[in-house]
Structure formats: structure tokens, C-alpha cells
């Protein structure tokens, strides 16, 4: 019975990590701009993230190392210091985007501008980490995150044409606006395949003292949890494709995104959208901030753990404190959260190989995973998809910035 409970909790956990501001914003923009045509990117991203999450759990269960511990050990000090800097910048921008997501949800409900919500949101999420523990964070966010099912309900109610949806699952070349198409494609990949998720997940596995017996439930959790998250993201894309695409509406503000739930669900749709956005972004805020604190603590060998007092891990606790506080400044200054989200997700895509390639090396090293090494399919999928995402992003970001 405890096993089933564990699996269920794991699935809830991955909802929090999968569907957040990035997935909601990019899937909505993709649906509005290109109908069902970017569906295949969602599939590609989901496949890649399933492999990577499963690998994070397996690495920790077998080697008893977190991903960051293993990377520092295997690739040394230079690698650690050099890859930490781009990772820190990207995570900081993503964190600001997540805080912006919660702030915007509060704006939708209260009418008070999102800038004013930046610090209240930052303090609220910080208090959760400072006072709470990992279990509370995971369970609370996961259960409340089920409100995001509203996207799926909306998508079903809008009766999307099945043949067009299925056709979108196959890769297709873009129509006229090629740059935006590819830029959105890499933003979706960056939103789904988030490195902070792997650092967070493998640290959770160590804090939960996983061993080889967890490999089966870990695989199940990764597949079911991530697929469930993907269904939610797909719901967002379908709803956006049905509501915005036929009318030629480009999604440029979060207030517009809310409309895709208002049309099928009526007035409650607005509140459901705000609730889903707030809860999922709140969860992601905690995960990004914690993920970065884990990377620092494990990279330098500091004390870390969420399950004891901040006084026992001062540096760890102050890393997430400073991350949250400084990222909130960006939102308080009035940076547009939607633009920031899409941009930070595309940047995530650029930096993906910095994490995924060494990760794959670890997963093929018998010194770490012994007989539980990766198969060639997992290797090929992760290397192929992350390199593809990075290369397209390197080309698409400058073009998008120049073309506007």
C-alpha cells in the first residue's frame, strides 16, 4: 500500500514540475499562432523529459549520488564552475517568469497590477521553504495543481477536429512565418525539458533514501507523471488553437490567455485559469529556487536539506532566499512576464546540452549505475532532441530578436 502511495505522490510531484508558466505560455502561443501544427514538438519534448526524469531517479537510486554530486565528481571543478554560470542566469530568468506567473494570476483576480504582487509572492514562496519541509511542498502543490485539469476539460468541450489534431503530431515544415514557428518550437522544448527539474528530482530521491528497489516505481512515475503533465499542456494548446487561431488572435498578454477557458467554461473559466496559473507557477517557483540551491550546495559540498532548520544549512537556505528576492525585483520593475517567459524558455533550450550530454555520460558509466546502464534508445533520444533544441534555438533566438 505504501508503494502505491509513493507512486501516486510521485505523479503529483511531476505535475508541479511539468506544467508551469513556461508550458502554459508557450503551448498557448503555439496554439494561437499555428493551430495544431506544433503538436509534434510537445510529443518530442515529453519523450525526452520522460527519459531524463527516469534517469535522474535511477542515477540517485543506484549510485546514491545526486545528479550534481555525480557531475562534480565525474567532471571536476572546472566543468562545475563553468557550467554553473549559464545555468544560474537561465534559472534566475525562469524563476522571475514563474513569480510573474503567480503575480499575473493574482492580477486577473484582484485587478491590482502584477508589479505590486511580485514581492508578496516572493515572500509567500520563501516562507514555504523557510518554514515548511519537502513533503509539504510536494503534496500541497501537487494536489492543488489538479485544478489544471480545467485545460483538458476546456479542450474537450471545444470539440477539436480529431484528424487535424492527429496530423499535428507529425512534424511539418512551417507556413510563412518560419522564424516564429521555430522560436516557439524551441521555447516549448525549453519549457518541457527543464534542467532544474532533474536536479530537484534527484535530490528528492536522495532525501527520500531511494535504493535499487525504487527503480520500477521510478520508471512508472516518470512515464505516467510526465505523460499526465503533457496531456495538460496539450489541453492548453488545443484550447488555444480552437479559441484564438480561427480568429487570427496572437497571444501577447496573459489576460488574453485566460479567454481560452472563458469561452468554453464561462465566467468560472477566468477563475479556474487564474487558479491553475497561480498554483502551477507557485510550485515551479519553489522547484527552481530549490533546484539552484541544491546545485550550489552539492557542487561546493555544503550542508543542505529541506527537512531540517535553515540554521543547519545557512548557505543553502540563503541561496534560495537571494534567488527569489532578486528575481522578484525583475517583475516589480514591470518586465513583461509573458515575453520574459517565452524568452527564458528559449534560452533554456540553448543550454540544454550542457546538462544532458554529461548526464548521458554518467548514465553509461558502470562506476555510477552498474548494471542499470542506459539503453541505446534513451541515449539517442536525449542526445538527439537536446542537441536539436539547442541548435535551432541558437539560430531562432537572434532571428526572433531582430525580426521582433
Amino acid at each position, binding site marked *: 500500500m505504501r508503494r502505491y502511495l509513493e507512486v501516486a505522490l510521485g505523479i503529483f510531484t511531476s505535475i508541479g514540475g511539468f506544467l508551469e508558466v513556461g508550458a502554459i505560455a508557450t503551448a498557448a502561443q503555439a496554439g494561437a499562432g499555428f493551430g495544431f501544427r506544433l503538436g509534434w514538438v510537445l510529443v518530442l519534448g515529453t519523450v525526452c523529459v520522460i527519459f531524463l526524469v527516469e534517469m535522474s531517479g535511477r542515477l540517485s537510486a543506484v*549510485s*546514491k*549520488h545526486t545528479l550534481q*554530486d555525480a557531475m*562534480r*565528481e*565525474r567532471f*571536476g*571543478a*572546472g566543468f562545475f*564552475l563553468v557550467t554553473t554560470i549559464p545555468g544560474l542566469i537561465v534559472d534566475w530568468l525562469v524563476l522571475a517568469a514563474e513569480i510573474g506567473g503567480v503575480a499575473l494570476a493574482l492580477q486577473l483576480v484582484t485587478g491590482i497590477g502584477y508589479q505590486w504582487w511580485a514581492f508578496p509572492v516572493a515572500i509567500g514562496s520563501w516562507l514555504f521553504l*523557510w*518554514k515548511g519541509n519537502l513533503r509539504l511542498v510536494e503534496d500541497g502543490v501537487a494536489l492543488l495543481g489538479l485544478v489544471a485539469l480545467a485545460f483538458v476539460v476546456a479542450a474537450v468541450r471545444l470539440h477539436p477536429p480529431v484528424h487535424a489534431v492527429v496530423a499535428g503530431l507529425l512534424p511539418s515544415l512551417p507556413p510563412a512565418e518560419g522564424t516564429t514557428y521555430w522560436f516557439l518550437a524551441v521555447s516549448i522544448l525549453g519549457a518541457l525539458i527543464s534542467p532544474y527539474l532533474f536536479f530537484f528530482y534527484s535530490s528528492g530521491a536522495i532525501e527520500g533514501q531511494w535504493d535499487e528497489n525504487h527503480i520500477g516505481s521510478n520508471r512508472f512515475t516518470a512515464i505516467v507523471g510526465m505523460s499526465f503533465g503533457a496531456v495538460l499542456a496539450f489541453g492548453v494548446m488545443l484550447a488555444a488553437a480552437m479559441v484564438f487561431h480561427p480568429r487570427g488572435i496572437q497571444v501577447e498578454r496573459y489576460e488574453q490567455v485566460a479567454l481560452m477557458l472563458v469561452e468554453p467554461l464561462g465566467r468560472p473559466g477566468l477563475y479556474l485559469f487564474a487558479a491553475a496559473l497561480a498554483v502551477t507557477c507557485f510550485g515551479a517557483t519553489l522547484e527552481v529556487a530549490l533546484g539552484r540551491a541544491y546545485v550550489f550546495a552539492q*557542487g*561546493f*559540498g*555544503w*550542508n*543542505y536539506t529541506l527537512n531540517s*532548520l*535553515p*540554521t543547519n544549512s*545557512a*548557505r543553502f*537556505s*540563503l541561496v534560495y532566499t537571494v534567488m527569489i528576492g532578486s528575481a522578484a525585483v525583475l517583475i516589480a520593475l514591470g518586465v513583461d512576464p509573458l515575453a520574459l517567459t517565452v524568452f527564458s524558455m528559449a534560452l533554456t533550450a540553448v543550454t540544454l546540452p550542457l546538462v544532458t550530454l554529461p548526464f548521458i555520460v554518467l548514465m553509461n558509466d558502470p*562506476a555510477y549505475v552498474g548494471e542499470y546502464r542506459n539503453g541505446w534508445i534513451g541515449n539517442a533520444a536525449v542526445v538527439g532532441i537536446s542537441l536539436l533544441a539547442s541548435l535551432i534555438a541558437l539560430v531562432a533566438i537572434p532571428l526572433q530578436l531582430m525580426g521582433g
Partner: protein
Amino acid sequence: MNLTRDILDQQVVDRAGQRLGKVDGVILELRDGEPPRIAAIEVGPVTLARRIHPRLAAWVEWWLRRFGPRSDGTLRIPWSKVRAIGVDIRVDLVAEGTAARAWEEWLRDHVVRRIPGTPQ
């Protein structure tokens, strides 16, 4: 035993399991007519920076001496104190009060404990 695989960059923990840092450097003792042997392991930001570039190490050292809570944070642990080498390297020390924890303790006493509502 493989020095770079089993020792360098491994987590160091004290008697109670408190984390001291990573093995940022290994110090070998050269002996006439005999093979070199490990004299000590080193934990600390200056040692870590030296592996990137000596100039970075000099800059980190200057910065830490100027602004750091005490010393430059380098802890040299004699090899005789190493008790076990596994997932972590366990050493026969108490982390509290060592140079490797100077920042941790300073931040704990001067920042974390002063934040209102922090459980003590």
C-alpha cells in the same frame, strides 16, 4: 584506489555526517627512493579556484582575506584523519569551527538567526 576517481571532488563529511565540503585538492608527499604518498586532502575555495587558473586563485584569496569571516577558508585534512572512503569521504573531525565552515557559521549567526521567525 584511483586518486582522481575515488578521492578528488568527493564529498567530505565529519564524524556526525555534517558536510565539510568537496575534496578540492590532494596533497602528495614526495619521498627519496620511495613512491609518493598522500599527505592530506584540501577543502576550500582557493584550492578550487587554483584548478581553473592561478590568477583566479590569487584573486579569490585576496577577496576572502579582505572580506571573509576568518582566514581564507582553506582546510587541510591530514590523510591520517580519513576514516572511510565510500559514497562520501568520512573524516575524524568535527566540522563546526573549522575553516571550511567559516562562512556557514558566519551567515548562520549574523544573517539566518536574525531573520524574524526563524526556528532556532
